[in-house]
């Protein structure tokens, strides 16, 4: 029942939202998202083998596709992230006024339903359906409520994701025809590799990988991302970067690495190199950005590159790190976007060079930002340290590649670079003397303190005591790892 509610509540609420008045829609969306959070928390409290976590009904009978959804460890942690994120997004952007707000919030809720569906589906066709369901509302949100260059940006976004999705569909259908009983079920997909030759897996890998690579994004499939982040309304950017990015990582963990273990193994080094190039490349570019949104966007590319690299390292430590880091990255980047949003709202600019001296005008905002920035550079006792530490340890001890040490050392350079661009940003926007623009700056309000306070609390609690997250995801780590392939 839990997974049905998780998808059903935002879906229904979204559809109802379209018919509401603009004023009511905002409260309605917040209410629905809090309800979803409640259900998600109930799901976590249930025992892992509870029947309440499963749902399976025939869907498209002629294709042997089922409406099969279930909530396992990986799903739990990502559903929790999604469920936490939406109320935070709604509260933090509460002051933002949208034209046709009912449509805006309706679409937001629809994309939440799609996201949760992606994390829950155990049927490939259903997974594809939700994948698109999550995407299409975001496309409209960005193109209707975005910045000046929104059309060009969303067009690029669309081209990338559309091509990716299309290839994934082809890949899924190919695998479908090679399952034993022509089924879309995840379990059938997990056995399909026995019937698909290594040579076939080698090319089939790319059909599915590109869809995920675009979504994460992995170099060189990433150039849609800074433009789209920059042009979308901040609430949408939060969804895109905090949550949609995880669709790609999640896809790797559930629908690619275990389904095509040989393909994944064969291309491990290639993808790892793409990740590392992307990490360094994006970190360097982040150093030279003046627009806050673009800087955060490139920093995210670097961080996601590490997560992808860790998946291909195929070790217990690295995959455990990925699980934790998917959650942490979502929390931290949403925190950063909230700060960016608050700055833009107050000063009408995102240019770092036009800001300065905010620390003397807004000490609370500064303190919050500094903590979030430190989490972003994975300082110990923040959440990201746990994830990055495990991922790096796992990459170092990887047996999936002979270049494990080289990969670790080159990827570790971004630990330095991230400090460079984050501290540059903190210094230039928040420290130094105030200027004419920031002279009239004021500190943040109560609701904003509340939201940032929750994020900071999550950062520190997970950073000091990550044990609950380990317990939640441990079984999934082993399950994924048991299906992946490493040359003995």
């Amino acid at each position, binding site marked *: 029942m839990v997974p049905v509610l998780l998808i059903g509540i935002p879906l229904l609420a979204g559809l109802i939202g379209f018919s509401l008045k603009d004023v009511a829609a905002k409260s309605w969306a917040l209410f629905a998202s809090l309800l979803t959070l409640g259900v998600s928390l109930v799901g976590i409290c249930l025992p892992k083998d509870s029947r309440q976590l499963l749902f399976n009904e025939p869907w498209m009978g002629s294709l042997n596709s089922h409406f099969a959804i279930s909530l396992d460890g990986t799903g739990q942690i990502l559903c929790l992230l999604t469920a936490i994120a939406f109320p935070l997004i709604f509260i933090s952007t509460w002051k933002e006024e949208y034209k046709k707000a009912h449509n805006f919030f309706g679409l937001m809720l629809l994309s939440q339903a799609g996201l949760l569906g992606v994390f829950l589906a155990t049927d490939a066709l259903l997974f594809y359906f939700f994948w698109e369901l999550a995407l299409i509302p975001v496309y409209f949100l960005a193109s209707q409520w975005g910045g000046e260059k929104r059309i060009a940006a969303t067009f690029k976004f669309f*081209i990338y994701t559309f091509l990716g999705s299309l290839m994934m569909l082809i890949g899924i259908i190919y695998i479908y025809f090679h399952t034993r009983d022509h089924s879309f079920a995840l379990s059938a997909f997990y056995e399909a590799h026995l019937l698909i030759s290594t040579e076939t897996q080698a090319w089939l890998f790319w059909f599915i990988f590109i869809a995920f690579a675009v979504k994460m994004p992995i170099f060189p499939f990433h*150039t849609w991302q800074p433009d789209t982040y920059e042009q979308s309304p901040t609430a949408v950017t939060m969804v895109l970067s905090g949550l949609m990015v995880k669709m790609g990582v999640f896809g790797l963990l559930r629908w690619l690495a275990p389904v095509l273990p040989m393909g994944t193994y064969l291309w491990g080094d290639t993808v790892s190199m793409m990740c590392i190039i992307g990490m360094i490349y994006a970190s360097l570019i982040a150093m*030279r*950005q003046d627009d806050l949104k673009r800087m955060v966007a490139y920093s995210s590319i670097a961080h996601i590159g590490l997560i992808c690299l860790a998946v291909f390292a195929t070790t217990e430590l690295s995959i455990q790190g990925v699980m934790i880091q998917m959650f942490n990255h979502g929390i931290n980047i949403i925190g950063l976007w909230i700060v960016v949003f608050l700055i833009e709202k107050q000063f009408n600019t995102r240019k770092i060079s036009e800001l300065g001296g905010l620390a003397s005008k807004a000490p609370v905002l500064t303190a919050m930002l500094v903590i979030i920035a430190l989490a972003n550079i994975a300082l110990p*006792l923040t959440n990201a340290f746990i994830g990055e530490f495990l991922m790096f340890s796992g990459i170092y*001890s990887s047996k999936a590649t002979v270049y494990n040490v080289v990969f670790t050392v080159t990827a570790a350079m971004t630990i330095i670079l991230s400090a460079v661009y984050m501290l540059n940003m903190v210094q230039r926007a928040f*420290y130094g003397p105030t200027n004419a623009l920031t002279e009239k700056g004021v500190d943040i309000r109560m609701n904003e303190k509340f939201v940032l306070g929750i994020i900071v609390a999550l950062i520190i609690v997970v950073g000091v005591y990550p044990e609950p997250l*380990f317990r939640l995801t441990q079984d999934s780590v082993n399950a994924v790892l048991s299906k992946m392939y490493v040359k003995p």
Partner: protein
Amino acid sequence: MSNYVYLVPLFPLIGFLINGLFRKSIPKSLSGLIGTAMILASFIVSAGIFFQVKQEGFQPVTITLFQFIHAGNLTIPFSFLVDPLSTLFLLIITGVGFLIHLYSIGYMKEENAPDYSKYFCFLNLFVFFMLLLVLGSNYVILFIGWEGVGLCSYLLIGYWFKNIDYDNAAKKAFIMNRIGDVGFLIAIFAIIYKFNSVSFDTVFQAAPSATTGFLTAITLLLFLGATGKSAQIPLYTWLPDAMAGPTPVSALIHAATMVTAGIYMIARSHVLYNLAPISQTVVAITGLATIILAALIAVKQNDIKKVLAYSTVSQLGYMFLGLGVGAYSEAVFHVLTHAFFKALLFLCAGSVIHAMSGEQDIRSMGGLKKYLPITHITFLMGCLAISGIPPFSGFFSKDEILTAAYGKNPVYFIIGVAGAMITAFYMFRLYATTFLGNFRGTDKQQHHLHESPSTMTIPLVVLAILAVVGGFLGVPELFAKNSNLLSHFLSPVLGGGEGSEEIPASTEWMLMGVSTILALSMVLYALSRFSKKPELGEPVGFAKWMADKFYVDELYDTLIVKPLNALADFFYQIIEKKLIDGLVNGTGRLVQYSSRQLRYLQSGQVGGYVLLMVIGTVLLFVVQLFLRK
């Protein structure tokens, strides 16, 4: 008592939270008091632990608070290790820390209320992380403290954040430390890979089974971490800039405690270093090079804090020399005496700066002896201690390191003594130009000159006493049997001082005599040269190189910073915008173009459709024909 060790870091953490969360509502007088009282409480607990650890037959205790990380079969507990080494550092950190907090109450009193709380909040947080660093029973907890103190150093260097130069100094400190930290981290990854544990006892027990090559690699990586935190070549350039922070911060973080973290870490890992002789040599030579380089630069600096900063870099070099020649407890001894005399010197400098209304240039000072009598006497004690004049504390610790170095290689000794001579010279140049001769500042400054309040002078007196007598904790065995209390105390962790026993007593006396006479002569030379006529001219030739710090900052800028920025620009402007984006947009335009072309097909004119239909039919007909064959 050692079961309550968690109280030691807990008190500063509470102080941090109180001052951090209520910084607006808390009255100014209270926030300084809370901050200081918390460190005093930690010191009392530490002293209790010390008396327990000191007893014969004490076994190291590990206190586990909770499981920090566990993944697969790797478990990393959040646990503390109480043994003589960590206990000694507890005493240094909380003891010197308490005095510096006390001093800060007076020194920072001009600050307005929320900033004043912020200062004590950060200072408490620093002590918390520093205590974690020395208490951690595994490399990960050590690393938490390690990066934590780096963070506090960043926050405190940039305490006056409105000044861009200070912010740059703070950022530079953090980033240079991060470079070292990456080395440290990679070493931890390798340790996990090899030993599947990060606990000191497990790793050290298993270490002999690893190959020398592997141990050399990880010890060198750990050392890279140490060069960042402890300001050695090649990562030392942040420390002089870090003097932008308030002077008590320089005393606590950038002299007495944080910068010795690298020495602590290597002393803690001495089992690994003993198995990796190449790394030991690298440590020793890096230490020696740093001693000389920093000392030469210090000779030509005119900022009172900069001189002290370079002398810190140089003194840390001695400690690394000690570590490199296997004289671990001697190196730790120097950490202890250095904490006393260097904290003292910095606090005296603070007192001088305070009296001079913020002036730091020694060219505008002179003759302060009669205005600041307590500061003058205590500063002189500190100078004698650092110059290695018997029986001041620095003499004993430096001498023991130099003797051990002689045992390893006489050349080490000669270079070390040369460094000591330069040290004596620049310290007494500093002393003479500041306190002797005539006052060279403005009349306004002269009018304002005054001795500091008692919250500032009391710590000076206490530290001065420690700087004078602290050396008797480690009197060489040469003078009396079993007189080296410190070495005896540390021997369960670091082993006895086997190194020095190889040298015959007569040689040792001679070495001691030579270094003392040379240092003393440099003191007298500097005094006679600078007390009457301080040099004020522009340096030329080699002196100019020394004054300009051998252009190392400029070198790094040209070799690393600028090329990296250029590469970043190339990536962004050329590859990102032109190449990748160009390709994607090209594809996009192609799609748009072709769809525009295809649109002509649906023009709505019946004639066009008919034409197309005919063409289509004909085509199909032709295809059909060919397929028939």
